[in-house]
């Protein structure tokens, strides 16, 4: 019995590294999904405004190009386009953020001097967005833990402890690895394309994925 326990314990130890990596990726997936939950609605607002502007510019004979039938704007599959765009952004954000720490040596530690040497778009966007996403992921985890626990005043605290443990075991190492991986850029704008994908996700994560703003005297829109 004791031998079997020892073997199981050894197997668990051997799986720790894999579990950490998977846990880090899963935390990012959770955080990005919480942040991007209403991204499609926001994209839809932007698409609708863009189409309306295009229709105004092409008013008259040109307007017929966009008008398939009565109800021009309604004729375009804008909700489907918005949903696909949001899904693409979400998938890309998960890939970019996971790539930021998975491709780095495990023992790498960030330092203030190294970060200043790497100062550029990427060095600003990656730490800010990743921290927001990891916090959002931890909150999403806390919510799901709270949902499965029996209702009691203790449940939110228990869920919070699990989230904190996930942040310490998965979140902090992932963030450290990603920041340590930053290298001095050839030019300041290096990584701008990735930043354009990550920035809205990061903004939404900080705005709606962090359960702190309710404590402030003002509120978000």
């Amino acid at each position, binding site marked *: 019995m004791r031998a079997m326990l020892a073997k199981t314990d050894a197997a*668990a130890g051997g799986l720790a590294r894999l579990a950490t990596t998977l846990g880090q990726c899963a935390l990012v997936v959770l955080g990005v999904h919480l942040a991007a939950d209403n991204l499609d609605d926001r994209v839809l607002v932007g698409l609708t405004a863009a189409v309306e502007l295009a229709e105004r510019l092409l008013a008259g004979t040109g307007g017929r190009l966009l008008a398939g039938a009565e109800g021009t704007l309604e004729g375009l599959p804008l909700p489907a386009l918005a949903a696909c765009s949001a899904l693409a952004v979400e998938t890309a954000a998960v890939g970019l953020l996971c790539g930021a720490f998975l491709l780095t040596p495990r023992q790498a530690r960030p330092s203030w001097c190294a970060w200043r040497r790497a100062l550029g778009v990427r060095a600003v966007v990656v730490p800010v967005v990743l921290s927001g996403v990891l916090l959002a992921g931890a909150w999403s985890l806390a919510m799901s833990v709270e949902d499965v626990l029996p209702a009691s005043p203790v449940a939110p605290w228990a869920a919070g402890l699990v989230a904190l443990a996930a942040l310490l075991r998965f979140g902090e190492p992932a963030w450290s690895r990603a920041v340590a991986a930053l290298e001095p850029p050839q030019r300041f704008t290096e990584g701008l394309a990735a930043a354009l994908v990550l920035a809205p996700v990061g903004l939404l994560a900080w705005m709606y994925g962090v359960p702190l703003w309710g404590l402030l005297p003002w509120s978000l829109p």
Partner: protein
Amino acid sequence: MKGWSELSLLAAVLVACWVRTPVGAALTGAVALARHQPTPDLLASFRTALPAEVERSLVTALVQGPTPGNTDPELPGEGAWSAAVRTAVSAHLGPEVLVQVEGLGEADPAAALEIWAVGREARDRAVRRARASGSTVPEALSAHRRFLGDEDAAAADRAVEDTLALATVLDLAWPVSPAAPLTSGFGYRQHPVLHTRKLHEGVDIAVPEGTEVHAAGAGRVARARFDGVNGNHVTIDHGHGVTTAYCHGSVLRIDKGTSVTRGTLLMDSGSTGRSTGPHLHFGLRIGGRPVDPAPFRARGAAEVLARIGPA
């Protein structure tokens, strides 16, 4: 004991991924499909028998016509248990559900439907979470529904949005006199101008040029302008995914962004845009999908009126 904490946390995070993202839903799609109970189609729900008193009130409003003087102040907005909402709950979810939902004692039907669908506890948690994230109006559905699990959010959407969309449609009036004949129905047809087979996403109502066209229901004007196809046209967003469109007017009488009630004057009819003669094109969409507005009002009204007599 190295590794156990990571494995335990990984299990928790993976379960969370399963519950709170579409990943789990996608992986279990086959199982879900096998268990799937199709949601009753909204139109099919509408066509189930309406209580006579509801029919009578609807038909009365219809026959009198939605003139500005006939704007019914009793028509519900958000948060009212109207006959239309009760009928929609009964037709879409079942009479027994109406009893359960009304038994919850909530003044707002949207809140009551959501509590019925996901439970009061889950809803309260979601509201609390929305408040923690800084939402000013956590009770509003759009503000807190994202904090429900994906499955609960979908259940709430089905119960609340579908039912209230049906209720919204039940409250729509005909935009001109119901006596005006339909000259072209909804569906595929040979387009009179383009001479190609196209989906006609509404009905054409024969009315003389200059006839007043009124809002079919309360809402906000999403569009009010001219283009080459629709001419002068107005689109109204009634909420819950229901929109109506009024096309080919001669003169617009309202601006984009204006809030309207049922019967508000929108425009004078005409023959602008892609049109062969004076008429009103009236379109109805539910959840972005064009549906035939005729069964909701005109044709059904004549039949109902013949059966139950004048109110």
